[in-house]
């Protein structure tokens, strides 16, 4: 494999301006992540210490093997919702190493509204367990939740992917032979009581941990029975009498030590046998990505410049280098793992769509995980292209991406607009992981195009009523649409809604990819097979 020859002049004014701009965005991201992780109102932290409880971040630090990487997912979930008062949706999710094994953590954050589950908390837990299922990742649950946030109960409870899905996913994990360890560090009430109950192993802290379907006030209301928390569902009740919990612990520290020992008992998964070579750092510094990404989302850049700063030795075997050049396809290694890369270099035409569908089949045939680097405004429109079958060629890409058996990982590097999002393994197409870069945007069409379409409809409607509009009236229609569109297409909105697994600073992407490819290889894959490709 040959090294990509970068054509970027890192001494240029353009590069310098891009770098300053994009570094600024990454600094903002990191500051928002830090605040989400660490900043809490003093009264909430005081309550925790009064209850003799550790802060969720300290629990996780104690659980993980020292000095190993922790890939936190969806750190900024719910950042645009609930008045910004539920940092991280009150849940910490991430992939780390415990006793030498890759595991995924679901941890309730009791410093946020007592660990109550909001609608996006439920979505985040369900997503965490979906990741566990898809990648056969053992789970450690750190349970400390006040229960569902009742004012929003209708958005939490009944639908297919709401709270019940947590317990369904736990059961499916068990059926697949993927072990779960739960540590009961606070109250597990109502549905939450099933989290430890459905885990293979669980540990409960005496004094602070409790499990019950209905807490003492509910029992009192329902039957008139007076009962204390400990008598109803404390550590001794469940480890000596009911058998709902397995191991009593005298402190959080001991509970975490027992959990570490339990994870160490689980069998190591057999990794999928894919090609691996000795890792090599990229020849071009990943930090240069800040200067590669233009400041304006409309300005095109060569995705090979991105690939050169993500892959081992900046080496890339480009497939069909002379055909369908708006989609770059080829093979490379990331931390030694072989990957097939599909990266956008402009609008998808007929030839680039066919190339993409064909390349996905090649990756599946040779069992190579696929990495999608999205920067896509869509498929080409117009008479010529419709006559040439741009719709059916796009459909081929969608058929190939949906039918793929090999793991897919998607990074939205810049724009993700319209059907291009589908053909390039958007969220709906089950990539094992999907990350965004801070400046990227995602929506059904660009903000300006949408504002124009909506303003046009309004103008025509009014002109049918015989009324014209002044330019300032048109602007008054367009501006609010533009503003709302910009807000809802930002990476922060996407990550708030869990349309992705987190925003990454571009230079951190290489390490995140290595960790996610590694865990993706835990799950077996079938022989490639697809539906009907419209020819």
């Amino acid at each position, binding site marked *: 494999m040959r*090294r990509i020859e970068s054509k970027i002049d890192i001494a240029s004014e353009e590069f310098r301006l891009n770098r300053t701009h994009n570094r600024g965005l990454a600094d903002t991201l990191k500051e928002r992540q830090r605040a989400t992780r660490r900043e809490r109102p003093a009264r909430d932290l005081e309550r925790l210490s009064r209850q003799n409880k550790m802060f969720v971040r300290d629990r996780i630090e104690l659980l993980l093997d020292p000095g190993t990487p922790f890939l936190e997912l969806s750190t900024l979930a719910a950042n645009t919702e609930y008045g910004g008062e539920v940092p991280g949706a009150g849940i910490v999710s991430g992939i780390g190493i415990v006793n030498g094994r890759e595991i995924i953590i679901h941890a309730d954050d009791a410093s946020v509204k007592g660990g109550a589950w909001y609608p996006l908390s439920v979505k985040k837990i369900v997503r965490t367990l979906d990741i566990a299922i898809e990648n056969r990742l053992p789970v450690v649950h750190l349970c400390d939740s006040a229960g569902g946030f009742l004012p929003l109960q209708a958005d939490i409870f009944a639908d297919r992917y709401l709270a019940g899905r947590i317990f369904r996913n736990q059961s499916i994990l068990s059926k697949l032979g993927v072990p779960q360890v739960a540590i009961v560090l606070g109250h597990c009430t109502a549905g939450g009581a099933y989290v430890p109950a459905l885990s293979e192993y669980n540990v409960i802290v005496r004094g602070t941990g409790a499990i019950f379907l209905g807490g003492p006030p509910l029992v009192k209301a329902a039957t008139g029975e007076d009962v204390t928390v400990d008598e109803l569902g404390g550590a001794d009740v469940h480890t000596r009498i009911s058998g709902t919990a397995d191991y009593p612990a005298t402190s959080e520290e001991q509970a975490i030590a027992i959990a570490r020992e339990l994870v160490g008992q689980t069998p190591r998964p057999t990794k999928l046998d894919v090609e691996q070579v000795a890792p090599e750092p990229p020849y071009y510094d990943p930090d240069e990505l800040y200067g590669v990404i233009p400041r*304006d989302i409309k*300005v*095109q850049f060569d995705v090979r410049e991105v690939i050169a700063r993500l892959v081992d*030795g900046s080496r890339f075997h480009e497939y069909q280098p002379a055909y369908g050049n708006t989609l770059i396809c080829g093979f490379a290694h990331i931390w030694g793992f072989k990957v097939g890369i599909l990266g956008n270099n*402009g*609008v998808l035409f007929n030839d680039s769509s066919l190339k993409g569908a064909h390349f996905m089949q090649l990756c599946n045939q040779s069992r190579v995980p696929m990495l999608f680097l999205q920067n896509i405004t869509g498929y080409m429109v117009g008479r010529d292209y419709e006559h040439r079958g741009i719709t059916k060629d796009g459909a081929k890409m969608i058929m190939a991406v949906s039918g793929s058996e090999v793991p897919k990982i998607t990074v939205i590097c810049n724009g993700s607009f319209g059907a291009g999002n589908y053909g390039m393994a958007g969220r709906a197409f089950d990539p094992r992981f999907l990350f965004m870069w801070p400046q990227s945007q995602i929506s059904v069409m660009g903000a300006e195009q949408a504002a124009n379409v909506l303003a046009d409809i309004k103008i025509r409607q009014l002109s049918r009523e015989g009324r014209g509009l002044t330019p300032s009236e048109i602007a008054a229609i367009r501006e609010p649409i533009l503003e709302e569109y910009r807000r809802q297409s930002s990476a922060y909105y996407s990550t708030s809604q869990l349309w992705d697994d987190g925003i990454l600073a571009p230079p951190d992407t290489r390490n995140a990819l290595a960790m996610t490819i590694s865990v993706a290889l835990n799950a077996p894959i079938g022989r490639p097979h697809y539906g009907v490709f419209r020819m």
Partner: protein
Amino acid sequence: MCGAGVSRISGVLMQHTFVIAETEHEAWLSRRGDAYTLHVGEHVIPVALGSADGGGQLLKVGAETVRVLVASDGDFVHVHLDGATFTIRHVDPVQRYGSHAGAGADDIAEAPMPGVVIAVHVKEGQPVAAGETLMVIESMKLETAIKAWREGAVAAVHVGVGQAFQRGAPLLSLAPQSGA
């Protein structure tokens, strides 16, 4: 067709090519069981590399054993032996056998997609350096810079600002290079 474990096709060997002190050398390492054999020209020499006490490695070439220090740095390998340092570069065969004649020799930039010209940065007759932005076009919400694909002088600007064009339409040409 086959001899000594190296396949021959009309007398040419697809061996590894290395550059040492600006001279190309061809060699091939073949494996038999646990041992390696080095093929250089007509020579077939058993070789082995093992770790040496006190750092470095022991390289066995035929009957001789020498102590070497090897350091890799991207495409370069530095070898220290007998008090001298040699820098070895591996030459990629796809690049080596690629012909450079004709690369970038085209004189016309064609539209990669249908669109509209939004800026022209050069005038006819103006000399340009490779990589310089000549024109910016917009298509499907994307701005693409048309850059000089080689050094030269602008022969013609075929479309002006605001003008629309189809895919494959000529956008701009450079004067043919003398002797090309």
